[in-house]
């Protein structure tokens, strides 16, 4: 190890992460004992916290890798971003595993897939992003410019394609029209860069450097994110069609407090701070949390106003309670086990990032060497 951070902080954060991992493993054992109520997933809300976590790590990982790929100055800063980007992207894949009923069968996704499935966009693009990300780390660490350049191109292209592919997959699912809005493609791509900037700003704070990312760029992207959401909201007022009613449901249904917290604490406040250049690290943390909340809101949006709700007016679905307003399906509240498993994935991401940044993989940051 080549500890560059405060040792007490490393030990403290490491201990917390290990506790989170232990709790997550315990919850995972519970989950795979298939006891009723261990997860809140139902046939009406088939995707929840784990998919939200996947989307969050995907955005943060791809964003960090994109910045690492396009960044010109500061080899060490790029290397740090690439390392964290690869770890976060890998954790995105890991977040999916506990969501599978039979995770041992996932080899089929690689060796016996149905190539018509849009889900494979995620699988293959994530794999390609990880491969190019690792090559970028090798190129940067061993100071091989040709390899670093080629890997940068591959990493940048696949990082964007990964987020784009996921957004397209969601938009293509006919059973959940709440995911249909194409505005989400723009939001996903903008959030990817926001998350990448936020990771870079936090890395700068943790490792005591500040070069690679303009906080004003991050602030401007948050404004762009808000503008696309506003545009989607205005379409609601003019069109009021089926797909947009799902957006209305998250704005005014059970999840409204999460939606508005995300807007205020995850977009407005950090944008104001970043554009004024004050409290940059706090703003970066808030922006990252805002992206995470936004992903959760997006995932549940597909289920709370589903396509089958339009089959016939006045019908109700057995076992479901109607809620007031536009929301049709009872709110999904992740179970304690789901939170514990999600916490373990986050803990693992932080632990691996910290270990990598304090290892010989990332040399001591000396601007004179860059």
């Amino acid at each position, binding site marked *: 190890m080549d500890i560059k951070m405060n040792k007490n902080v490393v030990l403290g954060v490491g201990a917390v992460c290990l506790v989170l991992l232990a709790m997550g493993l315990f919850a995972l054992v519970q989950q795979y*004992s*298939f*006891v*009723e109520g261990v*997860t809140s*997933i*139902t*046939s*009406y809300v*088939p*995707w929840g916290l784990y998919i939200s976590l996947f989307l969050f790590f995907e955005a943060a990982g791809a964003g960090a890798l994109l910045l690492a790929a396009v960044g010109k100055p500061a080899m060490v800063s790029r290397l740090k971003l690439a390392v964290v980007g690869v770890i976060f992207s890998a954790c995105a894949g890991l977040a999916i595993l506990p*969501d*599978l*009923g*039979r*995770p041992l*069968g*996932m080899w*089929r*996704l690689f060796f*016996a*897939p*149905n190539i*018509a*499935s*849009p*889900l*494979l966009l995620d*699988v293959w693009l994530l794999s390609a992003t990880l491969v190019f990300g690792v090559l970028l780390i090798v190129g940067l660490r061993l100071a091989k410019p040709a390899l670093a350049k080629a890997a940068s191109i591959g990493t940048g292209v696949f990082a964007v394609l990964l987020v784009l592919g996921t957004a397209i997959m969601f938009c293509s*699912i*006919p*059973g*959940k029209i709440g995911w249909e809005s194409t505005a989400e493609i723009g939001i996903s791509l903008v959030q990817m860069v926001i998350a990448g900037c936020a990771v870079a700003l936090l890395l700068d704070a943790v490792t005591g450097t500040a070069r690679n990312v303009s906080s004003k760029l991050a602030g401007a992207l948050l404004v762009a994110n808000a503008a696309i959401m506003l545009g989607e909201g205005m379409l609601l007022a003019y069109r009021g069609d089926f797909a947009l009613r799902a957006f209305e449901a998250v704005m005014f249904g059970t999840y409204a407090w999460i939606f508005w917290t995300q807007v205020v604490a995850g977009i407005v406040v950090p944008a104001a701070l970043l554009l004024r250049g004050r409290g940059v690290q706090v703003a970066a943390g808030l922006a990252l949390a805002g992206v995470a909340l936004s992903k959760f809101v997006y995932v549940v949006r*597909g289920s709370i106003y*589903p*396509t*089958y709700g*339009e*089959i*016939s*007016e*006045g*019908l*109700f*679905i*057995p076992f479901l309670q109607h809620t007031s307003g536009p929301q049709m399906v009872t709110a999904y509240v992740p179970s304690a086990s789901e939170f514990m498993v999600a916490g373990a994935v986050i803990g693992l991401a932080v632990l691996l990032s910290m270990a990598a940044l304090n290892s010989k993989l990332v040399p001591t940051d000396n601007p004179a060497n860059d």
Partner: protein
Amino acid sequence: MTRYGMLIDVSTCAGCDACTMACKYQNATPSGMYWCKVLKGEYGEYPNSGQTVLPMACQHCQDAPCVSACPTGASFYDENRCVQVDYEKCIGCRMCINACPYNARSYHDVDQKTTPYYEGYEMTPYEEMRAAEHPIGVVEKCVMCKERTAQGEEPSCVKTCITKSRWFGDLDDPTSEINEMIKKLGAKPLMEDLGTEPSVYYAGLV
């Protein structure tokens, strides 16, 4: 080529749920899981109001979103163009549940042995035997009673319907009774505009 389909006349359906129970008995689905459901609702305002029922199950679409969305090919069309699930290939990702516009699929994530019907209940040997037909961690749905239809019988829900509101037959046979009744009743599939080409037709929808 055979294409099995079904016709449901909602105007004569009594909403008795006999089809739901017949399906459950035939297929021994786990507790809380119903491949065949009868949705119920109300429409209008008093005095111009009424009740409506809608029997729902897999629509066995000919351009099924679940089949194309399944990443492992676990969902497939059988020789009678009915959509089936190969449990061996299913990894329980639930992409198909999201893809199905009719919410016809169920996720089996509860072990019947550890979660009995009620506290203290012990499964009978028959129940244990049938439970083995339903592996945990996979997605299930109506199979159009493939064991029955293979022997030339009607699906259980059709056979049981007390008001004879269901018809079963070959949609590719222009002379079949089901095709005649579809024409006679002016039946249409649900949410036709999605282009999924369901094999289940409905007549008498409110």
